[in-house]
């Protein structure tokens, strides 16, 4: 069985079937993209994967355990973390604090430890701060460490969301349109960064409308339309798939 196995998940909102019996699988260390027209149900799939929505049918199996309908915080603990389509940083916190919040579940000291400032508290706290700073370095945000998240430019906010997701210690990262609002040069940089994450062993599921990113980085691509899967395969295959071109790509050059 694959690392992450999704079998026939379905989500309805009133009369709308937002996601209709979608199945896919992701292997460890892969970058898999999910693409499809607006309102196809991509974000909804992420919401189901991370426990924001309960699923109406189907199952999600991660690393051998069923995780569907678990609470979001349990899903994170299991090792899946995400970013949001609309940026949701802790705007009033500093950059480094945002990442520290991410380390929350990996922190073990108790409430009493923190009130008594035990050695365990100090040791662990130092370690987490260090982890946070190292993550920021790797993503190129180290020099903005003391800034408040709110004051970051858009692109940096996107990066910080990723940094925060990494800090949870998750092995699977779900990125929802990370390149939105970036210009071609910036998305090229992002592309590099995502590649480097893959090298570090992360498994990545990506939602993106920017084909220059998707086609360049994905190991495999799933395409959904109206909540239903319509195609999947290697980037090249998808770029030339008639159905996909009709429903989604139009005449756009895919850069693949």
């Amino acid at each position: 069985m694959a690392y992450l196995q999704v079998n026939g998940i379905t989500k309805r909102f009133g009369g709308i079937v937002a996601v209709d019996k979608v199945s896919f699988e992701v292997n460890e260390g892969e970058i898999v993209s999910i693409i499809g027209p607006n309102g196809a149900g991509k974000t909804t799939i992420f919401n189901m994967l991370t426990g924001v929505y309960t699923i109406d049918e189907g199952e999600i199996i991660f690393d051998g355990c069923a995780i569907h309908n678990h609470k979001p915080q349990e899903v994170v603990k299991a090792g899946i973390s995400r970013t949001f389509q609309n940026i949701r940083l802790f705007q009033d916190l500093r950059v480094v604090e945002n990442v520290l919040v991410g380390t929350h579940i990996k922190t073990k000291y108790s409430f009493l430890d923190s009130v008594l400032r035990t050695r365990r508290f100090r040791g662990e706290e130092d370690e987490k701060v260090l982890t946070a700073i190292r993550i920021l370095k790797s993503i190129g945000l180290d020099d903005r460490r003391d800034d408040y998240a709110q004051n970051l430019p858009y692109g940096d906010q996107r990066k910080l969301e990723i940094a925060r997701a990494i800090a949870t210690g998750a092995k699977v990262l779900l990125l929802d349109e990370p390149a939105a609002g970036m210009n071609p040069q910036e998305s090229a940089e992002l592309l590099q960064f995502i590649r480097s994450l893959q090298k570090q062993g992360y498994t990545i599921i990506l939602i993106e409308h920017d084909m220059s990113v998707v086609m360049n980085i994905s190991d495999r691509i799933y395409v959904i339309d109206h909540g239903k899967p319509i195609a999947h395969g290697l980037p090249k295959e998808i770029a030339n798939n008639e159905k996909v071109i009709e429903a989604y790509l139009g005449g756009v050059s895919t850069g693949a």
Partner: protein
Amino acid sequence: MIGQQIFNGLTLGMCYALLAVGYSLVFGILRLVNFSHGSIYAFGAHTALLLVSMNLGIVPAVLLSLVFTGLLGVLIDKTALEPLRKKNSIPIASLITTIGISNIIQNLLTVFFGSEKKAFPALFNFGVISIGNIQITWTQICICIVSLGLMLLLVLVVKKTKIGLAMRGCEQNPKAANLMGVNVNFVISFTFFLGGVSAAIAGALISGYYQIVYPNMGYMAGLKAFAAAVLGGIGSIPGALVGGLLVGVSESMAATFLGSTYRDCMAFVILIIVLIVRPNGLFGKKGITKV
């Protein structure tokens, strides 16, 4: 006796509903709990009293007091709340501001009118009707009719008119509403005017019913009406009506069966029970939080 108490409770509930509408109107546009509403209500009642004592005749006096109280609402918005909106300050700053306003109004009323209870002329005092062994006064009937009429009118304004749409737009996203050509500050001030008018109507009716006014009169009534508004789903006018009636009747029942000393917390007990089952009140919509 129970029938009588239920009816008394309904009248009381209508009074709460009238007040609750004011909370809902303002909340419905600013997402702000206007803690000065109870004081505005007291202001309306005192203005009516003052004008009545000037021998204008009761109807013109009451009508004038509606205008004055409505203008007070506008004044509050323009002087205290609009500047906060301009600065995009945190919501709770507005809340504290309304608490400050409430202090000012209530204490100024005390300064000018004295803190003691004063007599207010009876309104609609046309006698009593008996249905079975329930006695209903005309005052009670008129309170119900006026309240229902007012609420119907407000629902129509909010749901069916252009300014009503603008009001809902302002609540959801004032910046976008402004960009769509809505004069947001005007719409908000207008809402405060409506809120003030509804408070003054409540002030005149309730004072005419109990024939008592005093500066503190809006305190407990205001809190309970606020509870009623939330109970119904704050922001919703039908919710305010149902919430008000529920609070009124349960209070009356509590006073009958548990004793009058329990009545003040009854509104809150009912409220908590309802909210545990329905976290957004009876008619409240769930806030949209798509991830």
